[in-house]
């Protein structure tokens, strides 16, 4: 039988993390298997073909398309400078040279193609370099020829539920006293510049703006509001596909929308790693091939010493005693433990008939909830 899948986000003190760092198109790999790389190390690079300009020759020179090749002063592959004459139509007689028609290049780059069908030429700007950084500190364990590498590290690994903004790196700084405290503008100090600032239950737009002003690398919070997200992005986010926003920092929420206390384990792990460098990414893709935002803190030898614990999360499904969070109304955001899994289908208030479980909430009350409406959290 196919088993029920109860989603859960990884919050792991120590795990082996592997990251594939692949270029968008083929290029050159700069490192080899076994190399130690830092987050900023360039592991692969390539050249992105430059932007294209299409210039009509036929129109300005008043000729037919098939005459264009003969009027070109440059041929495919030739370099061109901005404003350089690339095509010219001379009159039949020299004394009419004032009638000479010319076409100038609008860009500096190369002539790529001359078309005798459309009477146009294609000019291309010089290629732009694209680099791929390691993003995490670790060892190169595999080279994908001409494409990139896989980097492996042992790290503290925390997944958020939603984020905006791309990959960044910064030292972790916990700015609030506990997971239930809202991160306010006054918590963010000038010394947080370049750091990943950790809040508690909520972050409002004023605190985010303060973070941008100070120049923090990222903010991590339990919750935020839909309204503030809209203000931050300047538009309503219709689909959760993020990671390319240019908002001045990377924002990562761990629990959801609204005021929601950050899970105790997440907060205490971040507190424990305070002062260490974290690689964070807000990239979220909630579709097939789900991508969640992440915090990766590569662990030094000293931190690894004394323990061989390497936790690998398994998708065993939920069982009695597991700590869970309720992820839909009623009791949204509340924590509890699974009291028992009820095998029979049950009818909810909405009359939907579903598989359920009984959860004992933190205040001691028992609550029957659809299995789809809980997620496992880690102790």
């Amino acid at each position: 039988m196919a088993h029920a899948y109860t989603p859960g986000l990884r919050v792991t003190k120590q795990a082996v993390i592997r990251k594939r760092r692949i270029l968008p198109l083929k290029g050159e790999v700069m490192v080899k298997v076994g190399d130690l790389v830092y987050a900023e190390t360039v592991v692969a690079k390539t050249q992105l073909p430059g932007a294209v300009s299409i210039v009509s020759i036929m129109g300005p020179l008043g000729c037919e398309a098939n005459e264009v090749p003969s009027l070109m002063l440059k041929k495919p592959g030739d370099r061109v400078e901005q404003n350089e004459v690339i095509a010219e139509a001379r009159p039949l007689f020299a004394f009419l040279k004032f009638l000479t028609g010319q076409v100038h290049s609008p860009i500096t780059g190369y002539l790529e193609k001359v078309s005798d069908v459309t009477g146009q030429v294609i000019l291309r700007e010089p290629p732009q370099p694209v680099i791929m950084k390691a993003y995490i500190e670790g060892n190169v364990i595999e080279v994908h020829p001409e494409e990139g590498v896989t980097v492996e590290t042992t790290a503290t690994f925390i997944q958020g539920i939603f984020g905006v903004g791309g990959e960044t790196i910064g030292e972790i700084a916990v700015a609030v006293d506990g997971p239930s405290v809202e991160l306010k503008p006054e918590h963010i100090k000038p010394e947080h510049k370049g750091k990943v600032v950790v809040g508690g239950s909520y972050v409002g737009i004023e605190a985010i703006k303060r973070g941008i002003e100070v120049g923090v690398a990222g903010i991590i919070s339990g919750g935020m509001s839909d309204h503030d997200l809209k203000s931050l992005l300047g538009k309503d986010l219709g689909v959760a596909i993020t990671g390319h926003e240019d908002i001045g920092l990377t924002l990562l929420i761990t629990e959801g929308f609204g005021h929601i206390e950050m899970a105790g384990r997440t907060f205490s792990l971040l507190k424990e790693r305070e002062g260490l460098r974290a690689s964070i990414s807000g990239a979220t893709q909630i579709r097939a091939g789900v991508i969640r935002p992440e915090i990766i803190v590569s662990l030094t030898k000293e931190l690894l010493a004394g323990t061989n614990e390497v936790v690998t999360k398994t998708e065993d499904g939920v069982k009695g005693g597991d700590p869970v969070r309720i992820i839909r109304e009623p009791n949204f955001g509340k924590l509890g433990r699974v009291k028992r899994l009820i095998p029979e289908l049950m009818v909810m208030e909405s009359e939907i008939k579903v598989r359920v479980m009984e959860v004992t909430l933190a205040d001691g009350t028992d609550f029957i909830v659809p299995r789809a409406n809980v997620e496992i959290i880690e102790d």
Partner: protein
Amino acid sequence: MFKKNDPDLKVILATDCGSTTTKAILIEKIGDEYRQTYRGEAPTTVEAPFEDVTKGVLNSIQEIEDLSGRTFLEGEEIIHPSRPDGTGCDVYISTSSAGGGLQMMVAGVVKQMTAESAERAALGAGAIVMDVLAINDKRLPHERIEIIRTLRPDMILLAGGTDGGDVSKVIQMGEQISAADPRPRLGISYQLPIIFAGNVEAREKVKETLGGKFALTITSNIRPTLEQENPWEARQKIQDLFEEHVMAQAPGYNKLIDWCSAPIMPTPAAVGLIIRTIAEKEGINVIGVDIGGATTDIFSYFRVEGKGIYNRSVSANLGLSYSVSNVMAEAGMANVMRWASFDIEEEDLKNRIKNKMIRPTTIPHLLDELIIEQGLAREALRLAFIQHKELAVGLKGIQQQRDIADAFNQEATGATLIKMMELDLLVGSGGVLSHAPRRSQAMMMLIDAFQPEGTTRLAVDSIFMMPHLGVLTSVHETAATEVFDKDCIIYLGTCFAPRGDGRPGDRAMSYRIELETGQTLEGEMSFGEIKLFPYGLDDKGLPLRGTALISPARGLDMGQGKGRAVKGEVYGGVVGIVLDARGRPIRFAQNRQDRVSQLESWTKAFNAYPERKGGM
């Protein structure tokens, strides 16, 4: 090897590899009829850590094995053809939308003509159209090139020019595609497939421009003349290339292709095929809708001057989980809230919708949450239907005089082909409709969103098996249509709704319905009212029948003109007969209190919800 339409075919196994779930069904010949007997499902395994679609397929088939007691698997292989010992199946077929389905860009010369024809062809083949490019799309060439480069489609369909017409414009578009040099989404090192379906005289130049750099396929012109649209060959090529190129790049698909007795079809293409088959077989006009978590697909088949015209649209960001936040953004809060008869803080509701977006698998526990979700469904369906009507227009298969100047000047290529008064059957599919706790909720959602006019039958797909049946039509049409009638479709009933507006309380129509059971329903309806008469199925599970005489008031039309009575057949269903005198379009009260009373009376007429236990 099996024969097409082989009467000896007894055991058919079919899977649909969706983005998140792989669904398997078993169809067996029992006596003289084909029936769907068992169903299994398992998470799709295209993505890491499995990266092999066949694992999910095997898991879903394993579930059928557990339920049916029949063995289909031998190790990691499907046994087919079946063996004398009663193991295996005669045919195994599959559809797929895993890994994001088929994502295409289309290009033409004139936006309203060849580009629009190309868009319809791609959609009809089951693709998601990422962008439509045309020489007159008001973008500069470098902007177009940038878009082509950024979007990374699976395939490009290039149309343009009528046969014997101008060559330069389509070559211009080809040059821009070549300059952009787009990389395929899947597989860094394979050539991007491009289908050229334009002016036959441009073929050699197109080969010069695009051949070598891309996997170029040339097919017949999609728009050979201004008055003709010819999408069939291009559609077929798209589907062939989908399997040969795109699917072959996705993890595990080579193995799956080998297992299948027929080509793997994109899921929406298969749904379209079964809808088309049913419409043609019954001689009716049909609209089908599949509302999912991320997208809403609408399929229509309408007869125009005796010729059937099939259209499909996909609203890529209208769905009830992944895209639910976009439904709210596009519909507007007021439109979502008009379906709720209780108060809720706007900020709270928005946060809840965002939380559904980021945790898309959760389900409504509370009644109010269900009501909100069904309100969002109405809006998603309404918006998707608007998009469908805008696409299902124009020249397809009909002769129409128009010159190129008209096409440049017009916003769209003519009137929509979707005539609600002529619609015979509306079929809903997707979790919110197929699994609504009460069938009357599904019927209400369909009526509210699509607002059928005149006489229309409504149905839902019981367990989302239309994709399986669609691909089955390519192997065994009889089996597909029999299962469609007996196991796939659940008839909800018939809706009678006059078109037009009126004043609340004024007479809207009178009715006299003689039922097969001998009972007669007779009465008058006031404008704004809606009534439901339960009228179900016979012993064989087929809808009970009857005849109805509906006489609309002077300003209202039931299909024969304003004020003119219509007489026709009525079919029962698991919900019954609906008399809807709310007008078309449905008129909502302006005042909040009145609107709430209105909603309460409508839902009460349908017995749609249990009594609410206080607010949220």
